[in-house]
């Protein structure tokens, strides 16, 4: 009785199957959206709401400037606090997308009367955009396969460690926004190719504009899309839809991208963008040929015409490129781009690129760490895509393969590969699970396994399924399904663990396990920067290795000599030379640069291994690259880098060694070890009696991680 009563009430709410499906889908998407956001909050929970790493501090500083001074001042900002005495034209040397986005969100929140601090907005920008990326992944998956694959892709990308590594709360860097923009551009472009509509083409051009404004990685888009178009042309898939989509993206995207000052005329002049231009002209040739073919009825005549036209077009293109290169109108490829194509290039020629840890080549374990089971599913997904070739699947396959290759060259490019890997794996998961569940639910003996093959080959597969018995009985399907879900649950566990343990540390506050398993926090960096802010004159210049430049200007509010924007190799090499010279030689360089304080990072007390002594060889290499008086072998003993008694004499007396180990010889660091025992390198230091002549210790943080020295004025001459 009561049962029928409730059903009567619910009747108006009763949904049809399609509506139910939609409801479930929307619900899942909402949950994924939230999941993507909250899984990135581990860093805030474990530490506090703060900006991480190095580059984000610059972004934070500039965002602060935008909100305080407005966009036009930001655009014309000449920053005299970095690269002293050169300064930096900020507006013309950065990608403003991230800062402008954060400033807009900040304005919007204030308009809605949410009085948040700009720092909170910056901290949460990356998770917010990661959430948006999951939505884009859903629509993208839906476009290339079906809505099931879209949902799976959204779930996979929400927690994929490869993406989380760059988008946890607090990692306020270009990539956080750029991956969203990248995927969005690709989605819009594929949509444009599929529909041939000018509106989608226009949208993809604007997506591209946003990407260009956000990250230098836009070069990937402007090379991948022409490559994709080229492959379509070669495989005979040229269509009017493609013509509309590509031309719209290229022309409008180019005009828009040129509005970004950092890109400007590079977009039509530099070698990296020439592929796009070449393909653009090739498209016109194709269109023209198509038209001629339409007009000519004689095929022989057309073949002849074709041969002449193609030869001429290629010859003209080649000559134009040659003339452009020779006259210097087209600039050659930059080192970074070149090092992707010929990966051994950077190691031999550009130490400043090779020195960055995220530019190292990727070992298999890093792939495993960042993708986990997606790696196993990827080849299956590839196979599925090839079984149902369309313009869209060709695109995702090409995106997957090129980005996979680049990920193999540089660790940080795993980030770019992540969306593609998630999408392709999602296709594998979704298609397999769909098959298996269909099999489980089917009551008749007729199997429906061929259904993954899609509509195009449905006929063939149904024909095949008629005379086949069950491929694997229901038990087999059950086992497979169980295996698949087990794997997926392992994936979720892995991702959560990796996020919380490996990718959520801000690297400006260090955490270690104490002797009793408790967490010890080292907050030395901020201690030092606030000391600088409070205790030094406003116009003091601080010299340190370039890694800490952004942090010193952002948190210490003092002028630095070099920073993480490594645009001037000579200037960095000068600092490297000063650090690796004897004190009196270094003093002259320091005086010539007008330096008041020297800051070094030292991990000997805490066992913090990425300190300046461990980076020192790079300073020598980079310094020696410009000033040949600095020679790497002088700092090595038999090719070995040592700091103990057997170290090279030059090493024991260079400025960096002295500043790091000043008075360290008096200190007991570990029980049962002699004084002056370096815990980061596990040896007793070789020079315990360090006297400083031209510098004096100004401040050392509580765990000795940052040490600041004051440069003494020159002696009186009489």
């Amino acid at each position, binding site marked *: 009785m009561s049962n029928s009563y409730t059903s009567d009430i619910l009747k108006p709410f009763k949904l049809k199957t399609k509506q139910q499906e939609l409801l479930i889908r929307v619900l899942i998407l909402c949950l994924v959206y939230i999941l993507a956001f909250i899984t990135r909050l581990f860093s805030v929970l474990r530490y506090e709401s703060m900006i991480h790493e190095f580059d984000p501090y610059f972004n934070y500083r500039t965002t602060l400037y935008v909100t305080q001074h407005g966009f036009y001042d930001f655009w014309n900002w000449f920053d005299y606090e970095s690269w002293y005495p050169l300064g930096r034209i900020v507006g013309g040397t950065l990608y403003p997308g991230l800062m402008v986005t954060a400033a807009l969100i900040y304005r919007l929140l204030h308009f809605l009367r949410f009085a948040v601090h700009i720092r909170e907005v910056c901290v949460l920008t990356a998770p917010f955009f990661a959430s948006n990326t999951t939505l884009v992944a859903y629509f993208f998956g839906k476009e290339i396969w079906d809505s099931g694959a879209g949902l799976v892709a959204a779930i996979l990308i929400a927690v994929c460690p490869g993406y989380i590594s760059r988008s946890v709360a607090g990692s306020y860097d270009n990539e956080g926004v750029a991956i969203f923009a990248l995927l969005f551009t690709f989605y819009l472009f594929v949509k444009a190719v599929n529909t041939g509509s000018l509106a989608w083409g226009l949208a993809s051009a604007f997506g591209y504009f946003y990407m260009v404004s956000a990250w230098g990685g836009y070069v990937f888009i402007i090379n991948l899309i022409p490559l994709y178009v080229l492959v379509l042309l070669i495989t*005979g898939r040229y269509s009017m839809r493609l013509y509309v989509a590509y031309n719209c993206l290229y022309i409008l995207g180019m005009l828009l991208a040129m509005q970004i000052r950092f890109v400007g005329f590079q977009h039509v002049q530099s070698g990296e963008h020439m592929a796009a231009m070449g393909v653009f002209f090739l498209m016109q040739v194709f269109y023209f040929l198509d038209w001629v073919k339409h007009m000519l009825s004689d095929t022989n005549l057309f073949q002849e015409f074709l041969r002449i036209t193609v030869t001429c077009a290629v010859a003209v293109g080649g000559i134009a490129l040659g003339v452009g290169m020779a006259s210097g109108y087209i600039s050659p490829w930059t080192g970074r781009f070149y090092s992707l194509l010929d990966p051994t290039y950077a190691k031999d020629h550009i130490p400043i690129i090779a020195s960055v840890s995220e530019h190292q*080549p990727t*070992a298999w374990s890093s792939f495993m760490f960042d993708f986990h089971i997606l790696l*196993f599913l*990827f*080849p299956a997904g590839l196979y599925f895509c090839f079984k149902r070739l369309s313009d869209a699947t060709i695109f995702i396959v090409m995106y997957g393969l090129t980005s996979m290759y680049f990920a193999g060259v540089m660790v940080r490019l795993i980030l770019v590969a992540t969306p593609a890997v998630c999408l392709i794996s999602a296709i594998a998961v979704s298609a397999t699970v769909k098959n298996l569940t269909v099999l489980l639910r089917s009551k008749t003996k007729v199997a429906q396994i061929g259904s993954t093959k899609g509509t195009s080959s449905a006929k063939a597969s149904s024909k095949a399924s008629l005379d086949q018995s069950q491929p694997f009985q229901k038990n087999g399907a059950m086992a497979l399904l169980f295996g698949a879900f087990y794997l997926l649950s392992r994936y979720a566990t*892995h991702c959560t663990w990796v996020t919380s343990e490996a990718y959520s540390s801000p690297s400006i506050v260090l955490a270690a396990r104490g002797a009793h398993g408790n967490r010890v926090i080292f907050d030395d960096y901020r201690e030092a920067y606030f000391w600088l802010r409070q205790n030094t004159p406003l116009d003091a210049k601080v010299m340190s290795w370039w890694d800490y430049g952004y942090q010193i200007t952002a948190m210490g509010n003092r002028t630095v000599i070099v920073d993480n924007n490594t645009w001037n190799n000579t200037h960095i090499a000068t600092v490297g030379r000063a650090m690796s010279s004897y004190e009196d030689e270094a003093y002259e360089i320091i005086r010539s640069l007008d330096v008041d304080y020297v800051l070094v990072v030292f991990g000997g007390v805490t066992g913090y291994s990425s300190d300046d002594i461990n980076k020192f060889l790079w300073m020598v290499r980079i310094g020696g690259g410009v000033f040949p008086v600095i020679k790497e072998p002088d700092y090595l003993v038999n090719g070995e880098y040592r700091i103990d008694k057997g170290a090279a004499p030059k090493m024991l007396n260079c400025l960096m060694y002295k500043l790091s180990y000043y008075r360290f010889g008096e200190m007991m660091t570990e029980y049962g070890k002699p004084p002056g025992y370096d815990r980061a390198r596990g040896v007793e230091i070789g020079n315990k009696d360090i006297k400083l002549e031209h510098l004096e210790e100004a401040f050392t943080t509580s765990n000795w991680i940052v040490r600041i020295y004051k440069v003494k004025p020159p002696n009186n001459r009489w």
Partner: protein
Amino acid sequence: MADHFFTFSIITLSLFVVASSGGLESELVADLLTLQAESKSGVIHLDDRTVSKFLTSPRTPRPYSFLIFFDAANFHDKPELRLRELRREFEIVASSFITNHNSSNTKLFFGDIEFRESQSSFQLFGVNSLPHVRLVGPTAKSLKDDSDVMDQGDFSRLAESMAEFVQYRTKLTVGPIHRPPALSKMQLGLITALLLLCLPLVAKRIFAGETLLHDPKIWLSGAVFVYFFSVSGAMHNIIRKMPMFLVDRNDPNKLVFFYQGSGMQLGAEGFAVGFLYTVVGLLLAFVTHVLVYVKDATAKRLAMLFTLLVSFWAVKKVILLDNWKTGYGIHGFWPSSWN
């Protein structure tokens, strides 16, 4: 008179000696120049006899320095010694030096000694490990103690750093290093000409739609290969020049295939794991797309069982290896009351 004759003869004799020793030196240099010209790269091949002729017998100071590369043909196949590569780089330095000085500089000569044929020279120099490069200066009396050894740091950047070593020690400039281009101009011209000739033909076939490029199978295998190539860390092996495996330090008969520690890997290790990655994915594709067309039910079931087992094993193996390699113990975050 006799006295007079005696002093005269002494003077002439000593004059003769001086002249002859000067003549000997210039003769040696001339010999070296011809030897140098005979050699393709300008590296003079030395053996026990020539070592004594050019290095031990002439009185110091000799008019030239000698930079000697110690080679051993039977170690050429050991990748960790990099002998072949270093020798090639050494030859590049030699030929660059010679071209930059128009073959007229007689202050420095480049030579190599092979272990098998001149073992006594190896002893003379006291060389007991390879790779080994030594600079014998003009004043070096004892070949073992007075000559300079080029240390590991100077090999690190190959020809460039070797040249720096030479400049630093001998005060002779090597000048720009001339590396042979990968393709000679002739070849390059031929290739472009061929390409241009082929182009219309290729274009025609493309339009007709009958090339290999239109076969998805080829694209698929290419795609899987690219995938395998990157996830197996082959790029890492190429850039870092990692060997396929190492020999265990404690037990030379044992080979080490797996390296513990993330961010590093050995060649064979990467390929093994990359293979496991690929196998699971391809088996899945096989089960869903090929197996369904097999008629025989038992064969189907057996294949299915086989696939399940292999996939299970491969996934388990990779996860185990990864945990071992990185040292991470991955665990879930369950509510603490569950424990």
